């Protein structure tokens, strides 16, 4: 972080490009780039996190749409999944941010990255709107098989946005080249790391 602030000051360049390359120049970004294992590890954790975010939110959305768990009150389902969804979201955002630092300029200008960020904002707006509308009167429809139309709309928008976010994320991987300082060493085998 100090190195990041330093490089910003030294360059005297507060433009976004300057900030992005300063981010790439941090020791943190460098060590992720130079490690053979860190980036794949972060990616895997990112997938664990994002699949949990999508899966838990889908449980609630499908309940509001009247497709699954219809005999349980909506508020119970929300209690079950919301904490897990938030924890998984924090994990996904943190690992995503770390991956971003390794190649910030390329990701920043990638169209799929930008679409993904825009959709994440929309998903947030959708939650806020739901909390201000249908959720206010949840006692009235808590045990109904389906949510009122504004709730069903929010659930449908949520499902579609999260699926689209997953697609955008995968496309980022196919439209950016990962920068890496590490090449697999043909002389190092996993056996060497194991007890003989």
């Amino acid at each position, binding site marked *: 972080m100090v190195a990041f602030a330093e490089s910003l000051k030294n360059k005297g360049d507060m433009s976004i490009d300057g900030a992005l390359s300063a981010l790439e120049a941090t020791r943190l970004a460098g060590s992720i780039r130079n490690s*053979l*294992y860190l980036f*794949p590890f972060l*990616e*895997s954790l990112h*997938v*664990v996190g*994002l*699949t*949990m*975010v*999508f*899966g*838990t939110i*889908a*449980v609630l959305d499908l309940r509001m749409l009247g497709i*699954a*768990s219809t005999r*349980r009150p909506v508020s*119970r389902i929300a209690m*079950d*999944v919301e904490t*897990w969804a938030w924890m998984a979201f924090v994990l996904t955002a943190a690992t995503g941010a770390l991956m971003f630092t390794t190649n910030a300029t390329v990701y920043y200008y990638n169209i799929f990255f930008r679409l993904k960020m825009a959709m994440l904002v929309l998903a947030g707006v959708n939650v806020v709107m739901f909390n201000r509308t249908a959720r206010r009167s949840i006692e009235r429809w808590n045990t109904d098989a389906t949510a009122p139309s504004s709730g069903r709309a929010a659930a449908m928008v949520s499902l579609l946005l999260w*699926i689209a976010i*997953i*697609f955008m*994320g*995968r*496309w980022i*991987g*196919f439209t950016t080249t990962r920068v890496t300082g590490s090449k*697999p060493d*043909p002389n*190092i*085998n*996993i*056996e*060497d790391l194991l007890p003989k």
Partner: protein
Amino acid sequence: MTQFTGWLSQTSLSLTIQTHEWVIPTVQSIHIVAIGVALVSAFMIAFRVLGWTGSDQTLAETTARFWPWLLGSLCVLLLTGVLMVVGEPARELLAFSFWLKMCLVAIGTALTWWIGRSSARPLTVLTLIIWVSVIFLGRLIAYDHIWGSWSHSPKA
């Protein structure tokens, strides 16, 4: 196996996938959406056993809600998985991560079935670890070289 991947990569379906660049990312995206459904279905059963979620329901009710969704999503995963294997046979079938993942998917499915009926707590923790490992190994197919000589994947 190298002979088989060579033959598979020359089949017309494989060639079609190889020449249409959008197919692999699309199939992988559907695969990840289905992983979300599968993982959380297994987790909801496991979390119920551990008493973390669904305490207003019996384990049998929780299993009845999530087991069919686990099986359904596993079918989607199998279908999209087969398409990925056909599209890039050597990358998948020669990868150590791929075969270890397949073993763990089988064990994870069997364990989830078992804990949904018996509520064995130590096995439940193992089940959670196995499903997370499955996701790690799936991603590691792209980095199979980290296994050194255990990997026969062509792209190092």
